[in-house]
């Protein structure tokens, strides 16, 4: 992923953050806890992604068995830079119930994609260290013979996205489904190519570009990304480029894979 432009504004929690000088200081978002402690010229970092919100008895104190990473910052800044990043695998989201999409119809859904935090000393060219904000379960999209490893989205898709509230640690991903076939399509899962999406930020929320899926009656289709901030976040700045391009060869691959999932968008009748 290429280095993004530094955004003017991002939701609270992201951007520059100062590590503890006299002891570890904790940065917390969702289930992620990141402890940082500056000792002279060295910086000690430790992180943990909790099993759930309940498993956090004392967030200020790092667990005794925490593995610490010691780094030597290259720049003059004493801060850490924290930026959001999309997951490193595609995501499978369940539709709210089973969705029937009539021929020629369009449907807009809102998904909330889990994020990872990328961290490094500010002004340093060092590689980013990555920590997931929540533990993700893995799933398989395709058949036992071929397919793709994905993460499961805990939260299903919300119908519509006009008044979707911002959630910390999650990026809003608007999905527009267009049935270009002659028959009704029945959908129960959507595979989101997270690696092909850009990430945008305003001071209120993080979001991705709109994902448009054109589906035909046989379950095949193409997908494209908007390439700009979605309508839900006008004026948002791009903070992360896609990790991979949605090339011609990949078009429809995801949808073809999904066709093999039990109950996935098969034409009715």
């Amino acid at each position, binding site marked *: 992923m290429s280095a993004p432009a530094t955004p003017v504004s991002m939701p609270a929690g992201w951007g520059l953050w100062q590590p503890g000088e006299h002891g570890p200081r904790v940065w917390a978002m969702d289930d992620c806890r990141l402890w940082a402690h500056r000792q002279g010229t060295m910086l000690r970092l430790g992180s943990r992604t909790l099993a759930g919100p309940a498993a956090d008895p004392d967030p200020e104190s790092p667990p005794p068995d925490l593995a610490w990473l010691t780094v030597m910052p290259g720049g003059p800044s004493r801060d850490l830079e924290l930026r959001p990043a999309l997951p490193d695998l595609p995501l*499978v989201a369940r539709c709210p119930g089973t969705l029937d999409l009539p021929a020629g119809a369009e449907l807009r859904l809102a998904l909330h994609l889990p994020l990872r935090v990328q961290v490094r000393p500010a002004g340093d060219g060092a590689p980013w260290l990555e920590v997931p904000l929540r*533990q993700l*379960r*893995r*799933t*398989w*999209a395709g058949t*036992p*013979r*071929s*397919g793709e*490893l994905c993460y*499961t989205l805990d939260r299903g898709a919300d119908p519509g996205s006009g008044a979707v509230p911002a959630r910390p640690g999650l990026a809003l991903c608007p999905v527009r489904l267009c049935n270009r076939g002659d028959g009704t399509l029945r959908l129960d899962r959507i595979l989101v190519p997270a690696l092909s999406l850009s990430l945008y930020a305003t001071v209120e929320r993080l979001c991705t570009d709109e994902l448009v899926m054109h589906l035909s009656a046989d379950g095949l289709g193409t997908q494209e990304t908007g390439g700009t901030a979605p309508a839900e976040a006008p004026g948002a700045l791009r903070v992360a480029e896609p990790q991979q391009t949605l090339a011609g060869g990949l078009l429809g691959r995801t949808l073809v894979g999904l066709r093999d*999932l039990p109950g996935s968008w098969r034409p009715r009748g």
Partner: protein
Amino acid sequence: MDAQRVESLIRVAVWLVVGLPLVVLLSRWARRVAGQRLTPQRGLVAGKILFYAGAGLLLVSVLKELGFQLTTLMGTAGIIGIAVGFASQTSVSNIISGWFLIAEEPFALGDLVTVGETTGIVMSIDMLSVKLRTQDNRFVRIPNETLIKETLTNQTRFPIRRLELPVGVAYREDLARVRTVLLEVAHSTPVVLDEPEPQVMLTALGNSSVDLLLWVWVTRADWVHARSQLIEHVKAGLDRAGIEIPFPHLSLYAGSASEPLTIRMVKDEPAAG
């Protein structure tokens, strides 16, 4: 030595000095390009074909340059070939089996295969044999003929695999609850995939336990350590839920079927003498 003979020897030297490295370079190039564009295994085969064809041409050219009559040589080679053929049936069989293996492609370099009692990662596929590295780091050479004759299992051909874990619970346990606990355990084990969905099957009413089978799917990369992780989680999950994993029970009866044996404590007596 006349001038013509010297000229011939110089030509042979040029053939060998230029031709041999050229053949080696060409075969390496073919291996790399075909390996990148197709599969490493096909790259290996392409490289070998080019090497043997090039070396054969080079040999024929050198012999011709040295004044050998190739027609006579072929005739002699035919007679020798019959004699050698009888003596090297196994080798010939292995070579032909090797070609069948290449055409059929039941495995590729890097696959984990089981042949008979041997399981290992394919290191190389050669003219006479396939070389494996076992998981405990032993080197195993399997003749190609054996691979054609025996049942071969490719453990890593497909990207995901089903893992089956037998679990026994006490007869008094509520099976619906056991099923729920096992599925929860499967969903909370990181290596287990959400889909294809984990399943619990009731397999037998055993001598000491109700036998179940937990089916989960994992990626081939996780296969080796998934079983251990799953067993650990299942044991912990059943313990937490207070579900008994019984050990074998044996009831002995004597005489009347309804009367169990009476167990009586006998005081230890010091051994006499």
